């Protein structure tokens, strides 16, 4: 690979077939972002009682759609696009067989379409199908079988994507037996290793329990078991969202800042730490679960705290790389170098603002991880406040910012308007600052998450930080700005796609200051890291899962089935409520508007 050649040719010039897959994956991702944003604005305005255009019973359909489209579809389609680009680019060779590549893309798209249909059918009364089980689908609430089946197909698609990349890497390895794994490829392979370990549990939960149960083959499931299997997957999946952002921060951001990555070896260390530590921590989502011993929770807490390490290291390396670029371009002084950075570029400012918010999200995450103070905020609005900083900004804003740099590379079309792009990323930052801060504050008041109407008839929330109503206004304004920002992003991208193709857009990525040759060879020994990761997972999970099965049985201690998709739902609710008095019967009779 000659640098001169690469500086003339963009990715799409060199790998047109792969570029087409990357574009398709990104467009799927942004279609999901659009749907997620529409449901996001509906839900923000509903919750805060600014505008309620749907009945509150439909709020949970909206919430399920927002969650699934944003954190499964938007994030993971972006990941497969980015990883296809990164692996092909850094190995400098095409994928082995583009038909296999289109196959996994097709499986993912089909699976998500099936799941999406099962969710959206919940809005149409005449279709006896819905999946109002939210992104976490906790049994014994039950979705239509199509919901689970679609998820399974989608996950199988991601597995084949990983295999596609591994096979291409192995083919490269045969041609280059003594070379270090290129950094971006290393990131792809380690992230996919983590994904295989993590997603095995949710696949087991869906295929062994939830899908057979929704089809009526088994009568009941053990809610603690399926919940635990979900969180076995549910925590590492947040790193699956985050690693594309990390890849952009490590390998693209230094370039945009005018410099180079500070340290290749430490980037490798960080990704290895994620392979090792991201899975044996899921029980920290279950600190408040009965039926799980305190000791298991403590082990999970300890692992979780150590998982801060790779992110703290990342903060250093990324800032150091940016500072290196600024100083190389004439920056000086303790903080004066900050003025020598390309703040007018949306790709730069977007990623920097995303990183800043990730730091804030990291601190609120430390509160979540603190096993005892977590009691104050568990399942309150604090938690969505937290993850709108992490996945909702660190990841989402980095992805949008990354597109301003990446889209020309994969299409030869210049961005329609950098000014709109800059406005859009700053707007996202302001909107999220308002919304997320107010959500954290409401959480401290005890306002729950995941509810259509967080105001209750029998009591008022204590007044702090300006009170419930004032915070609602901040959430509504913030959510609206985020929606506008999303539309500007999508509009800008659509107009970019209408631009004519030009040449001369290629921007090759520079090599790090401290390169791969400085990294100990053991870092590239994936077999070793997988082995250690599996040992840690067994240590963290074997005993808890055995204890859960021993306590409640594989199929649960006499727990019923509560389908959210059958017409008899209302009858079942009425039956359950029949022995109870007064207001309760009213509530189940018409479910929503009654009580207030």
């Amino acid at each position: 690979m000659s640098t001169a050649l690469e500086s003339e040719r963009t990715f799409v010039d060199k790998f047109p077939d792969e570029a087409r897959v990357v574009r398709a994956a990104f467009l799927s991702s942004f279609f999901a972002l659009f749907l997620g944003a529409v449901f996001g604005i509906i839900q923000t305005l509903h919750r805060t009682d600014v505008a309620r255009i749907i009945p509150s019973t439909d709020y949970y359909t909206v919430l399920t759609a927002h969650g699934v489209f944003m954190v499964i579809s938007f994030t993971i389609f972006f990941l497969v696009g980015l990883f296809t680009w990164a692996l092909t680019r850094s190995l400098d060779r095409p994928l082995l067989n583009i038909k296999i590549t289109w196959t996994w893309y097709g499986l993912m798209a089909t699976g998500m379409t099936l799941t999406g249909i099962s969710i959206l059918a919940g809005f149409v009364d005449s279709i006896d199908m819905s999946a109002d089980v939210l992104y976490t689908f906790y049994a014994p609430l039950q979705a239509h079988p199509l919901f689970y089946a679609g998820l399974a197909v989608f996950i199988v698609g991601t597995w084949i994507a990983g295999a596609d990349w591994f096979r291409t890497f192995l083919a490269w390895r045969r041609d280059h037996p003594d070379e270090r794994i290129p950094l971006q490829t290393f990131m792809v392979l380690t992230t996919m290793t983590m994904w295989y370990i993590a997603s095995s549990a949710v696949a087991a939960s869906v295929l062994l329990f939830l899908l057979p149960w929704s089809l009526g083959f088994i009568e009941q499931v053990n809610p603690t078991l399926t919940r635990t299997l979900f969180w076995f997957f549910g925590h590492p999946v947040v790193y699956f969202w985050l690693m594309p952002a990390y890849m952009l921060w490590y390998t693209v951001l230094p370039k945009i800042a005018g410099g180079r990555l500070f340290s290749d070896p430490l980037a490798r260390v960080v990704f290895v730490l994620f392979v090792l530590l991201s899975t044996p921590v899921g029980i920290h989502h279950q600190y408040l679960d009965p039926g799980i011993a305190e000791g298991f929770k403590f082990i999970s807490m300890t692992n979780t705290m150590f998982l801060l390490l790779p992110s703290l290291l990342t903060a250093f390396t990324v800032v150091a790389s940016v500072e290196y670029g600024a100083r190389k371009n004439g920056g000086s002084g303790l903080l004066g170098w900050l003025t020598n950075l390309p703040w007018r570029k949306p790709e730069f400012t977007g990623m920097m603002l995303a990183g800043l918010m990730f730091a804030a999200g990291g601190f609120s995450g430390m509160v979540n991880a603190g096993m005892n103070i977590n009691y104050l905020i568990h399942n309150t609005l604090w938690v969505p406040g937290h993850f709108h900083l992490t996945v909702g900004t660190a990841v989402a804003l980095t992805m949008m910012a990354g597109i301003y740099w990446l889209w020309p590379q994969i299409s030869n079309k210049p961005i329609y308007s950098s000014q709109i792009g800059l406005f859009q990323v700053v707007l996202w930052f302001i909107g999220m600052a308002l919304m997320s801060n107010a959500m954290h504050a409401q959480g401290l008041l005890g306002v729950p998450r995941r509810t259509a109407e967080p105001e209750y008839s029998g009591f008022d929330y204590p007044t702090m930080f300006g009170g419930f109503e004032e915070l609602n206004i901040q959430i509504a304004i913030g959510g609206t700005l985020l929606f506008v920002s999303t539309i500007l992003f999508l509009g800008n991208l659509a107009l970019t796609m209408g631009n004519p193709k030009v040449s001369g857009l290629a921007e090759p990525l520079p090599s790090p200051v401290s390169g791969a040759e400085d990294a100990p060879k053991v870092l590239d020994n994936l077999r070793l890291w997988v082995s250690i990761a599996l040992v840690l997972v067994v240590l963290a999970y074997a005993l808890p899962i055995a204890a859960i099965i021993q306590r409640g049985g594989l199929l649960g201690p006499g727990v019923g089935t509560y389908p959210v998709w059958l017409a008899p739902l209302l009858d079942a609710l009425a039956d359950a409520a029949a022995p109870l008095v007064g207001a309760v019967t009213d509530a189940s009779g018409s479910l929503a508007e009654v009580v207030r």
Partner: protein
Amino acid sequence: MHIHAYEKLWLALSIVLILALIGTVTYGAVGPGVAMVADSQSTIDAGGIDEDERFSEPRVEQVGENEYEAYVVAYQFGFEPTPIVVPANSTVTLQVTSRDVIHGFEVAGTSANTMVVPGEVSEITVETDEPTEYGIVCNEYCGAGHHVMEGKLHVVSQSEFENRGGDSE
């Protein structure tokens, strides 16, 4: 492997922060004795809680000097008993279970908070102080009527509590 001196310092400080965070949780457990919701209670047949001595009649009862137990059932979409009435300046152990799906039980604005899982009994112990009224919210999505699911916790004076005969309904 070359690591910059500042980066070594940063790494050291990061590890100190992590150990300090683990230290605070450890101190909370062994010092003030913050107990987690855990597996202290055995499983229960969610379909048969009407036959269970504790939950067939959800209530508050005195179990020792200044010590009380509250047996609470969560269901789609409410809590029993409501309100939960407990005396001021006492130690109250709440046992909460569900007759149907997963719920949450959160005394709004306090750290009295637990998941409620069918088939399991969540146990949390709280200290009450002055008489006051709290709201209880279900903080886990439990179905289409989730937002109407609420309860109340009334902390009343000892004398008022005794006049009620120690029962909450």
